[in-house]
């Protein structure tokens, strides 16, 4: 009887703290993380210390360091421009959000912004990240 009681107590002591830890981990993840869309390719956005506006909901134009483009389901320059033109002709009012890699050539980005202007885009929001050492 004593052996059985001790074995049961040991089993109980092993599981309950583990459940507590997992619950705490779950609560941490729910509070700290924000559900978001997975980037279509690896991106390291530019760092800016003093931008304060928070990002908006909606589709994001992704630009990799090699200037690969992705917007919603569209991939490649022509498909992305067509998809953005469609979105703005269908009444998108919010500014286009761009998540570009920090290593993107600025002149190439400016040239692409001119192409976007031709599609009716007047204002873009460049997504940046808080510096890691801040």
């Amino acid at each position, binding site marked *: 009887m004593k052996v059985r009681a001790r074995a049961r107590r040991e089993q109980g002591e092993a599981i309950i703290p583990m459940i507590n830890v997992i619950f705490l981990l779950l609560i941490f993840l729910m509070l700290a993380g924000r559900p978001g869309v997975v980037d279509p390719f690896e991106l390291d956005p530019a760092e800016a210390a*003093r931008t304060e506006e928070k990002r908006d909901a909606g589709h994001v134009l992704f630009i990799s360091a090699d200037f690969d483009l992705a917007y919603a389901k569209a991939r490649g320059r022509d498909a992305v421009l067509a998809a953005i033109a469609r979105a703005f002709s269908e009444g998108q009012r919010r500014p286009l959000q761009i998540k570009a890699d920090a290593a993107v050539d600025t002149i190439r980005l400016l040239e692409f912004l001119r192409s976007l202007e031709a599609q009716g885009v007047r204002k873009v929001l460049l997504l940046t990240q808080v510096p890691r050492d801040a």
Partner: protein
Amino acid sequence: MNGLSISLARERKGRRALGLTPLVDVIFLLVVFYLLVSQFTQLRTLPVTVSDGTNGSPSREAWTVSVTGPDEIFFDGKPTSLERIESDLRLKNPGKDTALVILVAADVPLQTAVGLLDAAAHAGIAAVSLRAWRKGP
């Protein structure tokens, strides 16, 4: 007496098995779900107005910052850096009408341009434009 103890033991055993294992499974699945779906990098936004500014020279009232390379930044013809540019701009007392033109040469990474836009905004200059700098023939 014997039959009663067997039925009690079964009942206790059944209750314990029902309690913990499915709960742990569900919590584990929730943890895995949140680990995969969550993003922890805090993204901010930097507003940029899209306009055709690649042709012509900047207006006379506008201050000009030239960027010829990732770490080659010039303001008023003098070399400066991303760390110093904000204080350099403040030293010239920017007013409400002050405009800043950032001329960017080829092979300048976006990080440098964003750093300059950020510094200009913090120095109190609202009208900042980013233009491509083409070297003359």
